[in-house]
């Protein structure tokens, strides 16, 4: 069953239901506007707009400084990492290498090392002093014969003969043809 509506359509509705209310209560606005309020309202609004714009511009100005500052700081950091630090490291390497060569030459001239050692040390870039600084990799007491054993030749077990091999194949059921 279709629901019965209180108000059926726009045509049934009166445009205004409040005529009798207006007769009783009136339709005058009870809210009072302070005297001269509207006289200076346009001026106050304009003033507020210009103040807001000034503040906005000021912030905008600060914003510009912040951006410039950040860019400058980034450039300084980039300069330090890309130019200063690599240059310094290179300088240090050169200085260290120079010292080592000097030491090797001094050692050679003072007859501490022979010509072959000079060549070897120059290629390794190590002086005697530097070599002394390098610790021995192998422990001092580790000279047991077991550690010094060198494999010089492969040793075969010659006690195994052909019959043993055949017997092994038979016991394991392995066909020698497929090997």
């Amino acid at each position, binding site marked *: 069953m279709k629901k019965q509506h209180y*108000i059926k359509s*726009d045509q049934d509705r009166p445009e*205004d239901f409040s005529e009798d*209310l207006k007769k*009783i*209560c009136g339709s005058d606005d009870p809210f009072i*506007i302070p005297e001269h309020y509207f006289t200076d309202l*346009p001026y106050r609004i304009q003033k507020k707009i210009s103040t807001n714009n000034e503040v906005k511009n000021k912030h905008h100005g600060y914003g510009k400084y912040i951006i410039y500052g950040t860019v400058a700081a980034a450039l300084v950091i980039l300069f330090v990492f890309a130019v200063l630090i690599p240059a310094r490291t290179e300088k240090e390497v050169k200085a260290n290498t120079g010292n080592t060569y000097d030491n090797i030459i001094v050692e050679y001239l003072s007859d501490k090392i022979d010509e072959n050692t000079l060549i070897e040390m120059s290629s390794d870039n190590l002086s005697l002093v530097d070599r002394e600084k390098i610790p021995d990799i192998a422990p001092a007491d580790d000279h047991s014969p077991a550690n010094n054993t060198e494999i010089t030749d492969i040793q075969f077990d010659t006690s195994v003969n052909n019959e043993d091999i055949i017997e092994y194949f038979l016991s394991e059921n392995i066909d020698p043809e497929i090997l």
Partner: protein
Amino acid sequence: MQPVQDKDLLTLLRNENSRSQGFNMLVVKYQEKVYRMTRRIVISHEDTDDVVQNVFIKIWHHIEDFREDSKLSTWIYRIAVNESLALLKSRKLLNFIPFFSVEKKLSESLTDDNYFRADEISLKLQQSILSLPTRQRMVFNMRYYDGLSFEEISSILNTSKSALKTSYHFAVQKIKKKLSED
């Protein structure tokens, strides 16, 4: 003196050289209507003053966005309604007032308001209006006091005309009932 036409106002506002002049003329033309509409929603004069200023500042900044899909007055009233509701919402949030109590607080503030003068029946009418839900209250005020057509109210509140008529009808019924109870 002939009131300036909205079309002329818009022409002035869209020209950089005449923008300030056009804006002043717009404020003079609409300030009272915006004030009264806002005042009926937020009640106190001080709050109304804040809202009215914000409304016109918004108009100044966004006049370029007005595409003349509706009348200029409708666009201005819509901004006024939105700003007023935003203020009520902020009051509610700031003071931890439940939504249904905002109107109650406003109703209580009526009697203390220096800028409110009404006889007994008018005060009762205002208190009855403030007992309505916010949307119904706005529809009632726009129709009853501002004399706006349902079509215009529909554009301002973005609601269908038939829904507004129903809303207005129920608002009147509730007010009548409330007045008869008192």
